[in-house]
């Protein structure tokens, strides 16, 4: 929580940048248009009050590190730590019923490529099924597996692999 709280402090002005960052991560096909030189003065906006509902940073601010759950090697079951995190997610999505989101399933690099795609899909569905059991409408949840293709920790050791075996809930807007 300390991480996400400190993020709140700095998040006020970078909210839109974070949202863009999340967006470009999900849709690598398109780049934003190049900035144009303009003579119009930027309109002063009201002082931002924090991330807006419907952004990943708002979700992260609300549930902290609970946006991601982690799995043991080759496993896809929801353990008690995962359950706690998913309950926090479910409460958030109950509060904002207009939101839809994606669960990305990932594996560590110590598996064959095709099997890992299937395993990532199984992990994403485990998280989805648990959220549905907590009352989140199934139609609000999209799943996608990236197998071992998108690691967050880059070393080849047990600590890095533990970080990569994950299901991450992402709000795409």
């Amino acid at each position, binding site marked *: 929580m300390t991480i996400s709280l400190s993020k709140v402090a700095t998040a006020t002005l970078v909210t839109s940048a974070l949202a863009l960052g999340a967006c470009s991560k999900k849709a690598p096909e398109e780049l934003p248009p190049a900035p144009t030189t303009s003579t119009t003065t930027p309109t002063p906006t009201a002082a931002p009050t924090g991330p807006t509902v419907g952004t990943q940073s708002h979700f992260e601010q609300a549930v902290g590190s609970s946006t991601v759950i982690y799995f043991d090697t080759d496993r896809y079951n929801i353990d008690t730590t995962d359950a706690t995190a998913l309950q926090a997610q479910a409460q958030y999505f109950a509060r904002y019923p207009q939101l839809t989101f994606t669960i990305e399933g990932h594996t560590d690099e110590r598996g*064959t490529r095709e099997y890992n795609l299937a395993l990532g899909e*199984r992990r994403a*569905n485990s998280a989805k099924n648990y959220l549905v059991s907590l009352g989140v409408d199934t139609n609000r949840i999209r799943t996608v597996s990236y197998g071992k293709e998108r690691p967050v920790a880059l070393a080849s050791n047990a600590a890095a692999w533990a970080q990569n075996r994950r299901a991450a809930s992402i709000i795409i807007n």
Partner: protein
Amino acid sequence: MKFSVLALALPLLFAAPLAAQNQDLGEPVGDGGEVETTGVDPSNEEAEGGLTFTVTDESDWEDLGIAIPAFATDRDRATPANSSGTAALGREIARVITANLQNNGLFKPTGPDSLPSPDFPQITAPSWSSWSGRGAEMLVHGYVRARSDDRLVVGCYLYDVALQDELIREGWVVPPADWRRAAHKCSDLIYARLTGEDPFFDSRIAYIAETGPKDARVKRLAVMDSDGANHRFLTLGSATALTPRYSPDYSKIMYLSYVDGNPRIYVYDIGSGSQTLVTQNANPTLAPRWSPDGQHILYSMAVAGNTDIYRVPVTGGQSTRLTDTPGIDIGGSYSPDGSKIVFESDRSGEQQCYVMNADGTNQRRISFFGGRCATPEWSPRGDQIAFTRIAGDFNIGVMTPAGGGMRILTDGWQDEAPTWAPNGRIIQFFRTTRNAGRSSLWQVDLTGRNERRLPTPVDASDPAWGPIRP
């Protein structure tokens, strides 16, 4: 599969989704068709004998010296194949043949750059004394002739120097752009004549070209000849591409693409540059495979997280589900006669290899050695199954279709995804380095002694070796 059928009838209606799918594709590239075999043989008489021994092991051949001087030309003429005429091309062809025979650890070839060049009449009447003095047991001669229609005639002759006799000869007519194929056909002729094995040089490889840092890898579909030449990228890299498979006739490539944001199998038509989904379905589809006759496709599909193997006719229509366990059943590789399929399943709690009949019946586990068995691929000869063996490190292994005689051929940190040479004597795979995550293509023969890295312009994974070309 309804999709592709409908697309033919209603091209306008489907033009938009097709265009959207194609956004990661490069320009379509035509593939050279059949190579015409020509009767260069004036006597038209099949050479007989010449071999008085049988091959039991490739290592027996490492001392067999083969001299491969430059191919001669009747008249040095300009050709669109290169910038300096048929004489220079003849030397280049001999270089390609030398590299082919050298790189596979089979023979001890000597190339044109350290040999005298025979003149045109000597191609059919070798100067025996000059070659026997060089310690060469075998002698390759050949010629290049540019026809008036710009096509090239390439003749290839194999001689036994001690016997002073011709073992075999053949000729091909190729478009100038396909001159390397004549060199591969000649390599295949020599290899097959001397080893008694089926040829494999005139073949292509589809694979995934990788660039960029480990957490933002760009993965593009690429193709090349068996020796790395004629390399082309087929996708642009904006969407991750994985696990390609050439169709048996090289007209199509199936591969996985995230082009619509989800992992899905597409059937890419090489000639037209268009592609269609293997099945019109919202679920992720993985692990595409062709049947040996090219009439059926195997794919794996995850439904609510559970992955099973399905079969669909290449022309479209109803998919048949072949597995139905709650575990992950994935991949699949047909026996050469199409009657059986070897596949991977974790129904026992971990990845192991299983065989079933082509209709999905009689599923039984075949891998019972220690460790795990993944990505099984049936040899085109039918006698072996190659697979990724996971026991700490990942290595390439082979076993019989009954699961016996397991042998480990490689010793990398992470070697995976074997693919067979068309003749079932060599296996390619990809090797990933620890920490850096760099990937590269390698090949190893069935003895495990001849291992080498394949040259690729960038990092590479997921090799898929196609059959011998017509």
